[in-house]
């Protein structure tokens, strides 16, 4: 798997989702390079369990950096079918590669039409350039 940021859709809370047409309704989720830079010096991460059902916008995990705990939100609804459990052993991978090695979970989407409501790469870049 090789995920490029230009291929992704984004939430305003900085999660990305990768859901190509040939993925049979499975979406891969992570957080953007911008979010990783904001988080700076990650020390803890909690990810969901396989089988957990999530609604779009619901918390799926948490991270701690510099004594601040921040939630991560699922961009789409569905059931968690795989978690990148190796990532919590190598948080430095998020800094090196938030889009490929840094994926966090895969969701079997219950409503793939939710993808269309998210920002594309250009819109996301515009958002972070306006507010960053």
């Amino acid at each position, binding site marked *: 798997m090789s995920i490029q940021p230009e291929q992704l859709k984004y939430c*305003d*809370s*900085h999660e990305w989702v990768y859901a190509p047409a040939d993925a049979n309704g499975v979406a891969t989720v992570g*957080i953007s390079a911008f*979010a990783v830079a*904001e*988080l*700076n*010096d*990650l*020390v*803890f*991460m*909690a*990810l*969901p*369990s396989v089988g957990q059902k999530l609604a779009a916008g619901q918390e799926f995990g*948490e*991270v*701690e*950096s*510099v*004594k*601040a*705990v*921040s*939630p*991560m*939100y699922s961009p789409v609804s569905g059931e968690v079918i795989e*978690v990148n*459990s190796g990532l*919590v*052993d190598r*948080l430095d991978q998020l800094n090196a590669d938030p889009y490929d090695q840094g994926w966090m979970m895969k969701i079997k989407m219950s409503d793939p039409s939710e993808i269309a409501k998210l920002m594309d790469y250009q819109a996301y870049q515009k*958002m*972070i350039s306006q*507010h*960053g």
Partner: protein
Amino acid sequence: MEISKNKALLVRDSARTGIDNMRIDDCLLQRAVPEGPIVVRIYRWSEPTLSLGHFQQIEDLVDDPAGISQPSLNRLPWVRRKTGGGAILHDQEVTYSFVIPASNGLLDKGANEVLYRAVHEAVRDGLIRLGLEASLSENCTCSVAKKSGSVAKKSGDEEPFLCFQRRTPVDLVVGAHKVLGSAQRRTRTGLLQHGSLLLRASREFGALLGIQDIGKIPPEFLWEEWLIDRLCEGLETIVPLNYEVLELKDFGYLLR
């Protein structure tokens, strides 16, 4: 940090249990509304209580030097904070919290170090005026994370279990003694920051000295009022504020 409305509510609360204190801080965060006021709360604890950082496990205290040297810590009531960092022994201290409502979704991840620094510098300057040699630590005991399972865990032997035995660069110290530490939680509704100003050493853990153990300050000194003023000074370096003083009973939903 965008703060959309320059109104602040000041709440001087009473001493409460750990569970109630953390529940109230969490409620203030969850009930924060866009364009709403900043809520600043000052409080104490009705009994010596350990509050654990969000990702800490109480079992990790057993093997920590603090737990070995002072096993009574293991017998104290404890509560888990929604914020990060190490465990705090809340006893001879004044605690503060404030909630800043979110004004947009952009800044909902990561620590807001501007806020840490603004508050800690205001308290530092106040302590200096009281004759104490206070400064920001500018040191860090941050450890490399060690993880297991689906939750990353820090190695207990790399960083002390207790917050006041750790150092981050913005922690406030007087000489070798950390006297103020703070932590944050961010949600879609806003940012919660709370922190502890250590006044005196606790009988439960005498190694951690407080301000009144170090400086010559009258025992009747009104720390709550003093800390409220310092918090306001710190926040006003970021945004001018208009204050309204309330009691917690004015937030009835928090007490139900």
